[in-house]
């Protein structure tokens, strides 16, 4: 049962252009969403997050958009740089008591071509 889905396993983008990574979720109880970046031989690194009370959060070149009605979020990277080449994981969780686990998607491998 995939509660968090990343339907594109890979994406190639030219340096300087916009990268758009998409994520869909099925569980309406999720109210906090995160993007992690992972390089080979390293653990996932937190990138940016968004609470369900917002529809946009921006941090430098990274912007996450949330469409609650569509249960869809996206990560925009502008401009894309070769160092952005990595696997990007979408994750979701509940903001309730206790240390709630993250539910991850399968990831999208982004390749930024110079």
């Amino acid at each position, binding site marked *: 049962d995939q509660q968090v889905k990343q339907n594109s396993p890979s994406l190639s983008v030219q340096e300087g252009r916009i990268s758009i990574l998409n994520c869909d979720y099925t569980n309406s109880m999720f109210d906090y969403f995160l993007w992690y970046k992972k390089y080979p031989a*390293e*653990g*996932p690194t937190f990138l940016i997050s968004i609470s369900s009370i917002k529809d946009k959060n921006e941090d430098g070149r990274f912007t996450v958009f949330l469409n609650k009605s569509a249960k869809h979020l996206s990560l925009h990277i502008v401009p894309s740089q070769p160092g952005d080449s990595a696997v990007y994981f979408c*994750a979701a969780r509940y*903001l309730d008591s206790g*240390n*709630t686990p*993250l539910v991850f998607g399968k990831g999208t491998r982004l390749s930024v071509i110079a």
Partner: protein
Amino acid sequence: EPEVTQTPSHQVTQMGQEVILRCVPISNHLYFYWYRQILGQKVEFLVSFYNNEISEKSEIFDDQFSVERPDGSNFTLKIRSTKLEDSAMYFCASSEVGTGSDNEQFFGPGTRLTVL
């Protein structure tokens, strides 16, 4: 910058053997987690740990798995009798708080477990 560390980076074991994967969470963090990623699949939650007890566990975390915080710095995952399907990358994570939007989980580099 503080980071989560894990040892060993790669563990090879025979089926049926016990393995212990070790993690040193970030020092002021109170919440600890284990996740795993089977090759080509998504990262999956195993267990969370707070105040010396398990807070939550997934259906993957059966009786063959156990976690322990044997001292003030280490957090271990033990698999009592490994199976072929336990082969995966195991990630430890820690967070300063357990709830709210500040609950950013920091991940270690992972231990690759290969069961032969």
